[in-house]
C-alpha cells in the first residue's frame, strides 16, 4: 500500500495540455478534446488572465494576512487551473457549493474578492449573497456542502430545470470538496442520494494530495475517481493543472447533469503549492523536493508556455504585461477594500439568527446594546 495505490499513475487521467504546454487535440475516450476544440487563442488567453488574477489575489491575501489584516488565509495556489477550468464550464444558472478554498471559482462567478476575504478577516461567517452569483457560502465543516448541493439539485429537478433542452434553463450543481473530504460519511451519503435520485450534481474533488498534513493514502485506498462507479455513476480523473482538460471534463459532467442524466464525479489531480493555511507549517510533513517538483508543474506556467509557443513573441509579452497590470490593479483594489472593511457592530451577532422574532435573542441583544453603551462611559 504505497503512494502508487492512489497516485498520479494509478488511474488514467484526462489531459489536453501536456506539462510542456502542448495541446492534445484527440485521443481521449470521452470526447473531451472535441469539447474544447473551438477554444482559440483569445479564449486561452482569457483562461490565463483569470488564473493570473486569482493567483495575484491569493498572493495579496497572503500578504494581507502577514500584515495582520486577515486572521487567516487558505491559499488556492496551484489549483488555479482546476478552479478556473471548472468555473469556465458552468452556465449562468448553475450553482456552486464550495468548501473554503474555491477562490478561483468564486472570482469566476463574478464575486468581488473583497467579499471573499471578509470571512478570513473575521468580520463575518458568510459575506455574499449566493443567489446573486450562484456561488454559495464557504463551508468549513468538511463535506457538509456536498449534501446541500445534492438537496439543491433535487430542488432543481422539482423545478423542472433539467432535461428541457433549454440551455438557459437546465441547471447543474457543482459540489466542491477536497481529497480529505472523501473520508467523511456525509460525502458518501451525498453520492448515495445523488445516485438514487439521479440529481444533477457534479461532484468536483480537487485532489491536491494533502489534507493538512495527511497525504491521500490516509484518506483512500483506491484512486478516488473509481469510487463513483460503486455509487452508480461515472467518475473521471482529470489533470487538475490543465485548465483545458478541466473545462472539458467538468463541462461534460455539467451537460450530463443538465440533460437529466444524473451525477458524475470529477477528480481533478492537482497540488496545494502553499501551506494548508497561513497557520500551517508544511516543513513538518512534506519534503521540499516534492514541493519543488510541483512548483515546476505550476498550472500557470503550463498555459503560459502554450500561449508563448502559439502566438507572436511581442504580442505575447504585451499580453503578459497587460495581465500583470490588471492583476496589480485588482490587488491594489483588494488591499484597499479589505483595509477599509469596518468591524461589525457588536450587536450584529444577534442579526439574522432567526427570521421571526425571538424573545431571548431580543433580550440579550438589548442587554449587550446597553452594556456596550455603558462601556463607552466606563
Amino acid at each position, binding site marked *: 500500500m504505497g503512494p502508487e495505490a492512489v497516485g498520479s499513475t494509478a488511474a488514467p487521467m484526462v489531459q489536453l495540455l501536456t506539462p510542456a504546454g502542448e495541446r492534445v487535440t484527440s485521443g481521449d475516450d470521452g470526447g473531451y478534446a472535441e469539447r474544447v476544440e473551438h477554444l482559440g487563442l483569445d479564449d486561452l488567453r482569457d483562461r490565463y488572465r483569470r488564473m493570473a488574477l486569482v493567483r495575484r489575489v491569493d498572493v495579496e491575501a497572503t500578504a494581507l494576512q502577514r500584515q495582520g489584516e486577515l486572521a487567516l488565509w487558505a491559499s488556492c495556489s496551484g489549483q488555479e487551473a482546476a478552479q478556473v477550468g471548472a468555473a469556465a464550464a458552468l452556465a449562468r444558472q448553475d450553482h456552486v457549493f464550495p468548501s473554503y478554498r474555491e477562490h478561483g471559482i468564486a472570482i469566476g462567478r463574478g464575486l468581488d474578492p473583497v467579499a471573499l476575504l471578509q470571512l478570513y478577516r473575521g468580520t463575518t461567517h*458568510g459575506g455574499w*449573497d*449566493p443567489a446573486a452569483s450562484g456561488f454559495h457560502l464557504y463551508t468549513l465543516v468538511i463535506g457538509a456542502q456536498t449534501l446541500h448541493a445534492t*438537496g439543491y439539485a433535487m*430542488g432543481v429537478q422539482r423545478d423542472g430545470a433539467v432535461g428541457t433542452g433549454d440551455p438557459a434553463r437546465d441547471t447543474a450543481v457543482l459540489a466542491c470538496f477536497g481529497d480529505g473530504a472523501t473520508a467523511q460519511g*456525509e460525502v458518501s451519503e451525498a453520492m448515495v442520494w445523488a445516485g438514487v435520485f439521479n440529481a444533477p450534481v457534479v461532484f468536483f474533488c480537487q485532489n491536491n494530495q494533502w489534507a493538512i498534513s495527511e497525504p491521500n493514502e490516509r484518506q483512500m485506498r483506491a484512486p478516488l475517481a473509481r469510487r463513483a462507479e460503486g455509487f452508480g455513476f461515472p467518475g473521471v480523473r482529470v489533470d487538475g493543472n490543465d485548465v483545458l482538460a478541466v473545462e472539458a471534463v467538468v463541462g461534460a459532467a455539467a451537460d450530463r447533469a443538465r440533460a437529466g442524466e444524473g451525477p458524475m464525479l470529477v477528480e481533478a489531480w492537482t497540488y496545494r503549492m502553499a501551506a494548508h493555511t497561513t497557520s500551517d507549517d508544511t516543513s513538518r510533513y512534506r519534503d521540499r523536493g516534492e514541493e519543488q517538483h510541483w512548483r515546476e508543474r505550476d498550472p500557470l506556467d503550463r498555459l503560459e508556455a502554450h500561449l508563448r509557443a502559439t502566438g507572436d513573441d511581442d504580442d505575447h509579452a504585451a499580453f503578459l504585461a497587460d495581465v500583470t497590470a490588471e492583476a496589480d490593479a485588482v490587488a491594489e483594489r483588494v488591499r484597499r477594500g479589505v483595509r477599509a472593511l469596518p468591524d461589525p457592530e457588536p450587536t450584529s451577532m444577534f442579526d439574522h439568527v432567526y427570521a421571526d422574532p425571538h424573545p*431571548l435573542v431580543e433580550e440579550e441583544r438589548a442587554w449587550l446594546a446597553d452594556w456596550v453603551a455603558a462601556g463607552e462611559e466606563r
Partner: protein
Amino acid sequence: MNAPGHALTAAAAPRSRAERAPHERPAVHSTPRTTETTLAKAITAGLRRAMEEDEKVLLVGEDIGRLGGVFRVTDGLQKDFGEDRVVDSPLSEAGIVGTAVGLALRGYRPVCEIQFDGFIFPAFSEIVTQLAKMGARLGGAGRLPVVLRVPYGGGIGAVEHHSESPEALFAHTPGLRVVTPATPQDAYWMTQQAVRSDDPVMVFEPKRRYWDKGAVDLVGPLDAAPPLHAARVVRPGDDLTLVAYGPTVRLAVEAAAIAATEGTSVEVVDLRSVSPLDTATVEASVARTGRCVVVHEAPTFLGLGAELAARITERCFYALEAPVLRVGGFAVPYPAARIEEHYLPDVDRVLDAVDRSMAS
C-alpha cells in the same frame, strides 16, 4: 386561554393515588366545529393542509411513503401528493437534513421525519453546524424554513434508542426553534405553524400520546391559534405552578387533579415550546403561587428543568417560598422496557415533589 378542544382537560382523570380520594372529572369542552381525532392524525391533517396551501412544502423521511411512516403520521400523503413531494429517503439522517438545507436554499420548505428520537444523532452535525447556523451565516441573504419532526419520549415498551428525550441538546443550540405539542389541537396547529416559520423548527412529537384523542378544529384559520412559542395555562391554580411539556402534560394534569382532591390548588403550565421558552407565562404564575415544580422525561441533569429553575429563581427570587423542584429522568441511559416505568416520572413522583415543595 383554554382554547376549544384541548384533549387534556378531558384526559385529566387521576390515575394514581386515586384510591386515596374521590375526584371530579372536568367537563369536556367541545363545539360543533371540532372533530375528535388522535394526536397523530392531527399532525397528518396539519401536514396535509400545509401541503395544500404551499406547493413548496415537501415531506422527506424514511418509510414515509407507501408505509406512511412507522407511526402512520404521513399515511395517505404520498398517494395524494406524489413521490416528488412525499419522498421516501435513503436510510441516512445526515442526508435527510443536509439535502433539506439544500432544498430550502432552492426555495422549498422540507418537512423531515426522523424515525425515532435516538436516530437523530447521525444528523447532528448537519443540524447543529449547518441548519442552525446558516441563517446567521447568510446574514439575511436566505432563510432555512426546514421542519424536523421527531417522535420522542418513552413509555411505549420499545427497544433501545426508541424512547429518548434529547430536546435539551437542541434547545441549547442557538438558531433552532424547538416545540412540542401535548394535544391533538396543538399538534395540528403547531405542525402548520412550524411549516410556515422561516426558521428551522424542530417539532418533538410525544410518541406515547400519538393515540390520545381530542377535539380539533380542522377548519378555522391558523391565525386563531396561539403563537407557536406561547406557553399555556392548562389548569389554573393558586398554590403551586407545575410546568410540563409534551408527554408529561397529561401527567401534570392528572397530578393536579389528585392534588386538588387533597386540598392543593396546582396550576399546570404546558410550555408548548422549549426554545424559546415562554418564561413570562411561567414567571407570572410563580409570582402568584410562590412554588414551582418542573417535570420532563429527559434526564434531570441539564434538562429543561435546570434552565427553568435557574431563570425562574433569578426572576422570582423574592416570591419563591421553596426552591424550584425538578422531576425527570435519571442520569443513565434510557433503560430496558421492562423497567422503564421506574425511569419515567409518574404521577406519584410529581405529587411527591408537590408535597415536598408545599412542605417547605
